[in-house]
């Protein structure tokens, strides 16, 4: 990865830019805390100006004037299209199928896109107690599709996750009443899709300077590779400027 470190951007910046680009053509996006928050706000300023940002705190059509540190920041409200109770947000928007993309983070993920954000180790006696579901479990089930953004290593891309917080493609077909499940996973190394038949994760593109060996080194199973694996276009000057100047300092860290 020494080659990547010499580039004028960090792996996390590449991850956020690649995530933002996935939102091209999408309309209504349920925004999660952390990197998804930066990616969605970047997308609204670049590939998807008409993107409606939905925050689980109960805001539809948010136009945050600063990057919100938390997903309940007052800047989400001022100028938004609607403030709802959380019941209305989860029931009428999410559960009713009105969310095109749910953007989730994860501590662990498996090859079928099942996500753990609950505990490392046994639930009753955790080695590390993570935050838990929040809205992730119902987002994973009810959003029309799901994007996952997370750092990649052998500790996070694992054969068996310690706790299934939010279901992915399971090992079979998802019920018709559900959304389509995870369709993209974006990490500091590359972008992954899922095989239509088996529901298994598959490398779609490698970020500049990253090799297949790097991916294998950071995956706890034998990663499938798409036949036409590409190189992710590097961040443009404008994407970097927006992320660093408008969404970076003073907001959430991009490190």
């Amino acid at each position, binding site marked *: 990865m020494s080659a990547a470190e010499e580039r004028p951007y960090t792996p996390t910046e590449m991850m956020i830019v690649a995530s933002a680009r996935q939102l091209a053509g999408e309309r209504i996006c349920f925004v999660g805390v952390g990197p998804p928050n930066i990616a969605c706000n970047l997308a609204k300023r670049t590939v998807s100006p008409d993107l409606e940002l939905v925050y689980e*705190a109960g805001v539809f059509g948010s136009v945050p004037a600063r990057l919100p540190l938390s997903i*309940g920041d007052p800047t989400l409200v001022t100028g938004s299209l609607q403030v709802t109770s959380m019941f209305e947000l989860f029931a009428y928007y999410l559960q009713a199928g009105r969310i095109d993309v749910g953007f989730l983070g994860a501590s662990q993920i498996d090859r079928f896109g099942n996500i753990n954000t609950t505990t490392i180790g046994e639930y009753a006696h955790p*080695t590390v107690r993570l*935050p838990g*579901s929040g809205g992730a479990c119902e987002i994973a089930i009810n959003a029309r599709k799901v994007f996952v953004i997370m750092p990649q290593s052998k500790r996070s891309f694992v054969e068996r996750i310690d706790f299934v917080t939010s279901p992915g493609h399971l090992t079979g077909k998802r019920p018709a009443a559900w959304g389509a499940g995870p369709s993209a996973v974006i990490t500091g190394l590359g972008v992954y899709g899922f095989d239509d038949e088996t529901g298994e994760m598959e490398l779609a593109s490698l970020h500049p300077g990253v090799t297949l060996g790097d991916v294998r080194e950071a995956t706890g199973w034998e990663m499938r590779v798409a036949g036409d694996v590409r190189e992710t276009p590097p961040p443009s000057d404008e994407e970097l400027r927006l992320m660093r100047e408008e969404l970076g300092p003073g907001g959430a860290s991009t490190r």
Partner: protein
Amino acid sequence: MTTSKVTSMHDAVADLVRDGDTMAIEGFTHLICFAAGHEIIRQGRRDLTLCRMTPDVIYDQMIGAGVASKLVFSWLGNPGVGSLHAIRRRLERADPEPLEIEEYSHFGMVCRYVAGASRLPFFPLRSYFESDLPKANPRIVRMESPYDGEPVYAVPPLNPDVTIVHAQRADASGNAQIWGLLGCQKEAAFAASRVIVVCEELVGEAVVRRDPNRTAIPGIVVDAVVVEPRACHPSYAQGYYDRDNTFYRDWDAVARDPSVLEAWLGEWVYGLASHAEYVEKLGAERWASLAAGEAWSDPVNYGEYA
């Protein structure tokens, strides 16, 4: 003619919050009444079951101070920062003692309050399928629609003994108006046996009546009204003061070390008699940095139909 329910934070907590209570201090990031949490710590309540969707720093403080034996929640973190270390110590190492938990997802918690407020025996939702959450919490139960057999999950009602919510303004009988994020304060208040409303400003009933769409909680469910400006710091009140992100970031280091946490509680909770002293101790410069600025809505005409 209604009688005034206005009282002090000290008396409201003394009268309405009891050892062993199941309690909710709700407010999703917005309008979290930290001043009530501090008063509960000062008065030494014990064995509480604390319910909140997001325990937030307020429950890290309260649990760090030893007021609770159980936590009911759906997202356990310091929003935008990371972990709640006082709570994690108790869950990962039973330090200084174990903490019982009952865990849901956000929608599950919301539906519990809705069932509680509606006095229903359960509420159905489309979540939890193929998740390990129902294994971790057997109160999340799979069932089928009696109409078409569609599988859903049920969650039980949540009826707190006492709920505390904060509002921008309320009248003396507890009619409380909220704008900005609404969270599930209305549901948590209607679900509870006893309710304390804390407000930034006490207003006349006529102010409420001129804008009834903004009333989140009616006085009929409210037992006490406490006028406590800036009671939500480091959380915020839309239009009154901003979220103190610096405090949330700094809390990480405080809560990591039990002795630092104890010193913080000594300086900012036990060492102060009231929230007014906390506001003053925080200082004018800090408050100036949290000024909300102005963005007014346009007036609407409700019409006169005499």
